[in-house]
């Protein structure tokens, strides 16, 4: 099963140690075949709203900086517990903040 993990911004400013730990974590998950895709997100996005036939485009930023989604990882795991454990390890590396984790249903 696949899970999408989304990280909000915030927490401590990334330092050299965080970068190194993160790189090792990503490398390990790639090697074990768990990490399918990952990426960071530009904090300034744009929003599209539809209302009847009308579609409005609004440029960001929109939310409090610490609530914005800053990155994502798509993982393939055997169980919810495995996703949880990986999330736990990820949170330990990045420090304070939040992750939203959803199961992804098949294509």
């Amino acid at each position: 099963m696949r899970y999408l993990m989304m990280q909000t911004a915030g927490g401590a400013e990334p330092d050299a140690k965080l970068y190194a730990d993160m790189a090792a974590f990503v490398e390990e998950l790639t090697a074990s075949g768990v990490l399918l895709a990952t990426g960071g997100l530009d904090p300034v996005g744009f929003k599209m709203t539809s209302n009847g036939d009308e579609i409005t485009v609004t440029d960001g930023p929109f939310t409090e900086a610490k609530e914005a989604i800053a990155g994502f990882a798509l993982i393939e795991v055997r169980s919810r517990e495995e996703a949880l454990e990986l999330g736990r390890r990820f949170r330990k590396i990045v420090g304070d903040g939040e992750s939203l984790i959803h199961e992804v249903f098949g294509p």
Partner: protein
Amino acid sequence: MTDVPAAVAVAGKQESARIVAGLLRMVRDVGLAEEIAQDALVAALEQWPAAGIPENPGAWLMTVAKRRAVDHIRRSRTHERLAPDLARLAESDGEPGDDDVLRLMFTSCHPVLPPEARVALTLRVIAGLSPAEIARGFLVGEQVIVQRIAAAKRTLAEAGVAYEPAGQLSSVLEVVYLIFNEGYSASSGADLIRTDLCLEALRLGRLLAVLAPDEAEVHGLVALMEIQQSRSAARTGSGGEPIPLHEQNRGRWDQLLIRRGFAAMLRAREAGGPPGPYVLQAAIAVCHAQARTAEETDWPRIATLYEALERLLPSPVVRLNRAVAVGFAAGPQAGLDLLDELRADPKMAGYHLLPTVLGDLLVRLGRAAEGRRELERAASSARNAAERELLLRRAAALDVPRERGMLLGPAVAAFLGPLRPATARAYGQTLHRLTRIAGDRVPVAELPGERIAEIFAMSWAKVAPRSWNRHVAAVRSFAAWAGTPHLAAGIEPRPVEAAPHFAAGAEPRPVEAAPHLAAGIEPRPVEVEPVSRTSGPEPALRERVLWSLLRESAAKIGAVLALNVEDLDLADRSARNGAIVWRSGTARLLPELIAGRTRGPLFLADRRPGPGRPVAEVDLCPESGRRRLSYERAEYLCKRATGRSLDRLRHT
């Protein structure tokens, strides 16, 4: 997280390969390493509830496991083993690295183990699955897996295989692909749990790609699996019926996995070297994945790739796939020509995809009646109800007038019904196989006796005379009951005391013979001239010419059988502008076989075709009305007389 057992199980799976690999470096025994790793998990179950889940569960497990390994070595070491142990302990300070995991894979996939043991051990120590989880994947009892793993460890210990610095990568790839295919073949809902095996295989493959990045075949295998897996949602319909590739909804293909497959393929190319079997299969998968619609498929390229693959892996299944590709690339007749040999191959007898492909090709050639018969034959050997129904629906949709008379399947059922159970069981064994191969919807009256004889040759050429005679009795009895004695005309009982020299391959079968009896019987040497091993009457002139021509020309069997009298240049000892050339043996015999004929097929069947078997004009002798000798019949005659297939003659 409060659920400690779940956390331990997850850590055990995620860290298994590294922990066992690290331990293996210390203790040099897979079985022992795996047991110590288990001990560490038990320790975690005991300690984590009170102490909390450690920050880095993997490191915690590794530390505990190493400590136990050191304890074990201290306890068990003897004076003579002291030195190497200390050296080993000294070097085991570092973290287990990629090399250790790779060595563990070489060990668990070692060729001394039978394939199913390699699969079970690899899933246990590398993927970290429990025996119960492995058992569910392979539809066997947990105890079976426990024993299989125990036996594997014992075999490795006895063979002295512990810490393979450079094992056979091909064996590892084979195991990973076996696991993948086991999961891939499980398509129905009830089997869903088994499809997890595909993901395990993908993880193993991705891991291997990191461990052995310079090996093109590793990346080829990963690409192949990623792309095959990308179709998993599209390849079965709502009723569980398989959907062939060209009918799949390509929108349901998982583009993420396809892209990963492409990326793996690029890495395979970068690694270089001549393409191996996995790279070739991946290249074929890439071709399919690149086509946005079935019509855009680059069939000529796929046909070329299959041809290359067949050179590396000459197997009937590869040939069948190649025929499909050639059928699209160069037309149905070209595809059909490639299948001649397979139709006589006993290994393919119960394989429903052969008649499916034959049926498709024949239908596209406009030979709907034959095509339908093949599709119905395919239906009778299909693996599940959904597939069978699909084939029958396609057969029924063809615009062919319905054949008359009793059909084989219902006739066999009606015949067996009133018999005593023991007799019905014994006869049923024979007749059900006939039905499976000939097709349960073929009219009994139109089934030629020759076909029955061929099926006998295919299925039972090597059985003991008693078994053979039991099959003959079953068909005779059925033929008499159905009022179609011609069915049994081509099969004769064999003398029961038949010695190994008896014609149709009465080779002793080790599985049937008691070991002390089989030990005294020498297998017959392969290089013996096949014709000289004939017993009984000398083979007919036609067979002698055919065999001699095949031997001397080494031409394709289909091409030789397709020869017409008018194609021959007797003076030049050649046919078709020198495409087929023979020597003095054939030259001596040919005039007698031609016997004044001026045109028509060179090799003729013994009898004229029955009314229900329309034959193309090019395959009929204008003088005698007999049809061209079929590949199957020629193969059967050769097997009966020499015990060898025709193809072997070409290479003697």
